């Protein structure tokens, strides 16, 4: 009986895992198509993929089909095992972040007490994968790219963590479902009609968080690690075929995961004002609402990416340490004082 | 589960860490070995905490993680200083007493 139960648990877990993979790949693919192919093209007065399928909608399938049949090259000088391990690490960290994001009152994969803390911890591991990828390629561009990337990831991990603290102070919990509830049921200056979405009351925190996300994702203006005009493609210079595709997927899945976290932290997650917070219909509606919010945030990320030039490495570090982190600390102090005083 | 399982695991890590500290030439590797030792302590603390049903063990594990961070920071800085002066992180070649 217990065995049967365990088996059932296994099965449900596997099914749920596949569900998460869909939840990862769907937004990632959507973002690639909408933003990388189409929005940027429109911003540049052109059309983007048109031939593969109607309006180029099959382009992504073609990409996958192409990369799967590309030769897989591991350079002679590279550290074979670590070279092969690195993409797994990078992808896995991204996937694991998705696990804690709630998509509805019951639509969630795990419900951790320290949900946001877990998300930050897991995402900080990707710096490791990037460093290993850069080192194991035995390539100068890769190594410099890896070092830059890791230096940047850790420099912006901190403002991100500190920006979240403000939300945690306001919500009084680290559980992401709890944060959603706190926003849906909260009051803003005594007015509860819209709940208390933190993008208003934690505006500074959100700006810091989004800037940090931009940097964590190594998107322009913070894309020096993969700055093609300097370091070719940085730490992925030596990767070919499927392994490269894994990095590519990871990049866009990470956009999705950070957008999901940001949407949950600052925009009320899957909840919408006006619909009762924990009604069953939100289990269906919630994922759609969250996806819409994610798309909005990802849109901003790519909008900025395709508009700005990039910083220099030291300017980026200086920006993080002399502006973002002090501001984030001040934000914590202000939030603390407000929370305690009122 | 037995408490001893965790304690044995910690002991094994501790012994390996001690071996590493004594036998490694590379200063960075010695620091890593020290990390093993600190981790074994952490496992012990948390296990005892669970055994006794209070949070002291966990809180102290947190403090130890903080201490480990400080230790690695200073330790690596020393290794780097040595490296800059001697172009080597080989502890055999570095006799600090001589200067």
């Amino acid at each position, binding site marked *: 009986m*217990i065995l049967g139960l365990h088996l059932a648990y296994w099965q449900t877990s596997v099914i749920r895992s596949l569900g998460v993979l869909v939840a990862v790949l769907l937004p990632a693919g959507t973002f690639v198509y909408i933003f990388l192919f189409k929005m940027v093209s429109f911003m540049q007065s052109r059309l983007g993929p048109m031939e593969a399928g109607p309006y180029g909608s099959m382009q992504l399938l073609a990409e996958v089909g192409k990369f799967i049949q590309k030769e897989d090259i591991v350079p002679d*000088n*590279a550290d074979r095992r*670590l070279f092969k391990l690195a993409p797994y690490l990078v992808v896995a960290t991204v996937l694991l972040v998705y696990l804690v994001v709630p998509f509805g009152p019951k639509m969630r994969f795990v419900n951790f*007490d*320290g949900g946001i*803390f877990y998300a*930050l*911890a*897991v995402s*900080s591991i990707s*710096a*490791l994968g990037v*460093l290993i990828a850069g080192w194991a390629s035995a390539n100068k561009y890769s190594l410099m790219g890896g070092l830059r990337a890791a230096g940047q990831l*850790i420099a912006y*991990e901190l403002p991100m963590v500190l920006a979240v603290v403000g939300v945690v102070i306001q919500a009084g919990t680290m559980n992401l479902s709890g944060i959603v509830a706190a926003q849906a049921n909260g009051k803003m200056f005594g007015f509860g009609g819209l709940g208390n979405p933190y993008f208003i009351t934690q505006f500074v925190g959100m700006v810091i968080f989004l800037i940090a996300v931009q940097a964590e994702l190594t998107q322009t203006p913070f894309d020096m690690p993969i700055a093609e005009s300097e370091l070719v493609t940085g730490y992925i210079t030596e990767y070919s075929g499927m392994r490269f595709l894994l990095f590519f997927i990871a990049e866009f899945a990470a956009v999705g995961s950070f957008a999901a976290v940001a949407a949950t932290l600052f925009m009320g997650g899957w909840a919408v004002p006006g619909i009762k917070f924990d009604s069953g219909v939100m289990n269906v509606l919630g994922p759609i609402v969250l996806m819409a919010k994610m798309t909005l945030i990802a849109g901003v990320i790519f909008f900025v990416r395709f508009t700005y030039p990039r910083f220099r490495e030291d300017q980026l570090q200086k920006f993080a340490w002399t502006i973002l982190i002090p501001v984030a600390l001040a934000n914590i102090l202000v939030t603390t004082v407000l929370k305690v005083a009122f | *589960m037995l408490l*001893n*399982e965790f*304690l*044995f*695991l910690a002991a094994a*890590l501790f012994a390996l*860490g*001690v071996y*590493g*500290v004594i*036998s490694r*030439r*590379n*200063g*960075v*590797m010695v*620091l*890593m070995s020290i990390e*093993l030792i600190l*981790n074994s302590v*952490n*496992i012990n603390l*948390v296990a005892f*905490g*669970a*055994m006794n*049903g209070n949070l*002291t063990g*966990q809180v102290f*594990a*947190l*403090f130890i*993680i903080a201490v*480990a*961070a400080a230790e690695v*920071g*200073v330790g*690596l*800085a*020393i*290794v*780097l*200083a040595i490296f800059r002066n001697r172009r080597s992180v080989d502890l055999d070649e570095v006799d600090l007493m001589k200067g």
Partner: protein
Amino acid sequence: MGLIVAAARNADAPVLVAQNIAFGVIAAIMVFSAFRVVTTRNVVHAAVYLVMVLSGAAAQFVLLGAEFVAITQLLVYVGAIVVLFLFGIMLTRAPIRGEERATRDSWPLGAFTALVLAGLLGYSLTNGFGGDRLPRYCTTAAPLAGSCLSPSGTRAISDAIFSTYLIPFEVTSLLLLAALIGAIVIARRD
């Protein structure tokens, strides 16, 4: 292997079989990785093995119900300290094929010390805590404190820090400050 067998033998209740197996597998990985940390010739490999030890430790913390410590272990150890290690390694030249001579000539002494230590520890542990069992995992929603192994919430840890361990907490910040300044002074000195 022995650990897995031991774990399986110690299975005192069916519910705990899974935990014991999990413990055994993780412990075996940890010990193997720790062994490789102190024996591999390649510094970067050593760092990667260290990551496995540290993640294994985090998993053990989860088994012990210490969720917050486990995540902290990931955040600080894996996400920060190992990265610091890797930076240190890359600042000090890590040949991709590993070092020619990674161990000192005195390694037998180290091995001997470690073996003696392990023997002593094993003996004393078997003597001291031979039959002590950890409390079972709580199954009820509101367990009595201390009677069973329950995940300790972040709030509880926070309460502990901000009541009993306030002084150590503040001292920690002093320690970190001192370490920071010290490390900067050492690293920047030309």
